[in-house]
């Protein structure tokens, strides 16, 4: 009985790296993982909006998660990936330092996020999962992809 219960309450997440931390997004929110390719800059957008790419015929906006969370910049490398996520009607690519794992985490291992983890505000986080010796930060994509800030910026400039 107990075993079964645990199986039911697991979530599958894609694990990616940003700075020194490991983060996770639920697998059903991820559409694909792409290598970095040419990004067309879109002028007069917030700094974290890197531009748009041609994703198999669909023009997809790309945001840099480091910039989004106000972490320091770093050069893109061979390991840099774009994780294409879909939340509701939004489809956006997230630039991360590396993406290399898919793991199952039991729901009961997820704890509410502390105020700040790895420099990321709690509002963007869904929780923190402790697994053996790894610490996995789960993102709240709704908040991360909120267009509020883009609109606000627009209002200031316009």
């Amino acid at each position: 009985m107990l075993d079964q219960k645990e199986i039911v309450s697991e979530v599958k997440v894609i694990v990616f790296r940003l700075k020194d931390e490991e983060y996770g997004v639920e697998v059903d929110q991820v559409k694909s993982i792409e290598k970095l390719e040419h990004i067309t800059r879109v002028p007069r957008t917030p700094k974290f909006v890197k531009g748009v790419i041609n994703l198999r015929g669909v023009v997809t906006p790309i945001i840099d998660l480091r910039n989004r969370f106000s972490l320091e910049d770093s050069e893109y490398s061979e390991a840099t990936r774009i994780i294409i996520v879909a939340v509701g009607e939004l489809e956006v690519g997230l630039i991360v330092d590396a993406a290399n794992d898919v793991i199952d985490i039991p729901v009961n291992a997820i704890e509410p996020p502390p105020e700040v983890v790895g420099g990321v505000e709690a509002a963007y986080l869904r929780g923190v999962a402790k697994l053996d010796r790894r610490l996995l930060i789960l993102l709240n994509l709704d908040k991360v992809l909120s267009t509020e800030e883009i609109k606000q910026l627009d209002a200031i400039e316009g």
Partner: protein
Amino acid sequence: MDMNQYLDMFIEESKEHLQAINANLLLLENDPGNIAHVKEIFRSAHTLKGMSATMGFEDMASLTHEAENVLDLIRNDKLTINSDIMDVIFHSIDLIEGMVIDITEGGDGSADVSIPVKKLRAIVAGDFSVEQEIAATAAALEEAPSAEETAQQTQEYDLDDFALMVMEQSKELGNQSLWIKVTLNENCLLKAARAYMVFDQLESLGEVIKTKPTVEDIENERFEQSFEIAYVTMHPIEKIRSAILNISEIQDVMVEPIVVKAKVEEAPVVKEQAVSAPQKAQEAQPATARKTGAGGKTIRVDIDRLDILMNLFSELVIDRGRLEQLAREIGKSELQETVEHMSRISGDLQNIILTMRMVPVEQVFNRFPRMIRDLQKDLSKKVNLEIFGAETELDRTVIDEIGDPLNHLLRNSLDHGIESPAERKKAGKPEEGTIELRAFHSGNHVFIEVKDDGAGINKEKVLKKALERGIVTQAMADSMSDKQIHELLFAAGFSTADVISDISGRGVGLDVVKSKIESLGGSVGVDSVRGQGTTFLIQLPLTLSIISAMLVQVQNEKYAVPLSSIIETAVFKKDQIMMAHRQKVIDFRGRVVPLVSLQDIFQVPSSGNQSDDEVAVVIVRKGEKMAGLVVDSFIGQQEIVLKSFGKYLVNVFAISGATILGDGQVALIIDCNALIK
């Protein structure tokens, strides 16, 4: 039977017929003596009835049935139209429209039709007895060619409502109804077989509506020597008679025409409709078949399929660009020729696909005469709406979106533009105002003009209001040109009506119209002469998905400028650039045109290339105004496919969308309207 698969078609056709009825009703109102209009209305109402009954929408069927009866009387000159009758009919049509909308939204199309049905019946009953007599004689006259046979036996054939209705309808189609009495030989052995042969013959020449005794009884030989048939055919009586007499063991055939009375007895219609619904499917067919026959060969295609086709073709256009580029790079002539040929063919294909999506603006315009008619009654103004160029074609997606803005503009013209009859008289104008709605093509655009001969825009009033609302400052107001003042009408938060009427002052102003039209890639302008009227001019792109554009290079970035806003491209020497009010300008054909540096405006990172002493400029326009976009170089003209940014990036400044270039990269499309102040 599952009708769902026919539902879409039903809705589409119902709308078309309602449009036609509305249009013809209006014509009829202006020209009450013209029976041709009544015939058109009758035909549409008739088809509607058949379709709705088939689909099982009983309320709709019963209402159209009653309306049809009234129309029939009018058509046959047995009833003269007056405005009361018109209003009842208009009201009924409104109800039916409501039902169709309900059905469209997934409802069952039911509504309380008892009142209009009662009214319609009252109209019919008003001079029912008189009309019956005339009906008989009129029918007799019609049947004149076969006068010998017309023994005027108004005998009771014991026909039910359904049979009568079928006869009425077939008369519509030029058929005649016959009553046939077949008597078999006394020594006939296989009566049922003979009867079967008779039916077989008859079915090949027309349609058996009713038999006496019933078909079952005849098949089971439960009849004496004779049986009777109600029959509809388009062949002459003689032919029918001889056809039956050719069958052996027939002793005698009596054929006589049935005088179809215009009015069916007032039976509980709803019930009867329900029972006979399946049969009516067949009757509806001839009418629709005839319609398509007259209108050329067309097929109905789901708009979604056209969208898919368009999307697929868009992909092809991108690949075409890529192929062209590759062929140029490789430089092999055979490859280049093939690619060129393919480009030409796909160009033709593109034209065909685009025209397939084109529909006449008539579809939108059609609903306006009716709206104006109702509105002028509400506002007690007299207005004549004149429509020109209804055949002008536009992309279906544009058509779907343009209805509301146009509606708004027309209501605006009627409410604010046209004066009351008394005021008009005072101003020496005819009491009846005129609103012209005009559509026409020009280049890659379609223009729609809404023009009234009303009071024109009161500039002082507009300025005063704009100042009150804080849209402009006093300083700005003093220096504004007439044109600029007129443009204030489109400013957000502006509404000039002193009293908020429910016609056009419902809190949303013309700014909504403007933003809607701009979201379609179009523009709207206004021109007005005080005392003479106001003209709104809407400019719309022919299509929304593939456009011609000029690709330009700015440092390392590529941008696309829609060809529709480009006047020309030019190269200027640096010393030709002048300064005016700290703004770089150039003299372009005698006009001072401000220069806009794309590199500055789009904050393009410098690639370190030293610029030479010439500047490349794309001269673009927005209405009358012009601006020169400074770029590094021109890449060339290309067909590009419009792609949206999706929902995440909204309201990006001066960028209207993106496109995918031949090399697979994304280029942004510049929105010139935002760059010209």
